[in-house]
């Protein structure tokens, strides 16, 4: 019974990590769109290239934050959570 409980726990952690990584799709698409629009802006006003590039880099870095949160949560779920959960279960069982 204990083995089944640990198995379900590990399965839940792995599934949770996988679902968390879905959030990594959005920033990639958003960055692609942002760069395309920045190119249009530079095409219209070539003299503002430096300002547009600077804002674009900062915007892309900010857009990546959600992906980074997802990555960290997935890492915690894979590397740290199983050990802690198993410890909690073992203590509860005694």
């Amino acid at each position, binding site marked *: 019974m204990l083995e089944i409980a640990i198995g379900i726990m590990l399965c839940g952690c792995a599934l949770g990590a996988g679902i968390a990584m879905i959030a*990594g799709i959005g*920033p*990639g*698409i958003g*960055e*692609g*769109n942002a*760069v*395309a629009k*920045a*190119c249009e802006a*530079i095409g219209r006003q070539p003299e503002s290239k*430096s300002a547009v*590039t*600077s804002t*674009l*880099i*900062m915007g*892309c*870095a*900010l857009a*990546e*934050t959600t*992906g*980074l949160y997802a*990555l*960290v949560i997935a*890492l*915690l779920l894979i*590397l*740290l959570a199983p050990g802690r959960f198993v410890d909690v279960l073992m203590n509860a069982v005694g």
Partner: protein
Amino acid sequence: MKKFDPTVIAETRYIAAFVAVLSLLMEGVFLVLGKWDYTVLLGNLLTGSVSILNFFLLGVTVTKAMTKDEKDMGSFMKLSKTYRSLMILAVAGIGLGFKCFNDVAVILPLFFPQVGIYARGLKLRNSNVVSEGGEQDAV
């Protein structure tokens, strides 16, 4: 040596300075709490440097993507994002997997560049408000 865009270098320099300041602050907090040891320093150095490298690679990718066709741009950015995520995953995995790195000191520096960007946005917004107020006074 390969020439990089001056904007990318300037922004990376700003982010590196901000990461260094926040890292020092974090080390100080650990010292005050009495939980500082060499693992905190190692974890901070590991992911602090990787977060700066990630930002620099993002800047290089953006400047490179601007020279590509509109169709290739999106896929180029997505590919870069995937590779950079894998890099962070590997480094953070090493940091969390080995006991010689403090877990908290490994995770926190990954978000320092974003904190720096938010702080810069706030600073710019405040300076805009001040300059608008000054213009109104002059009128």
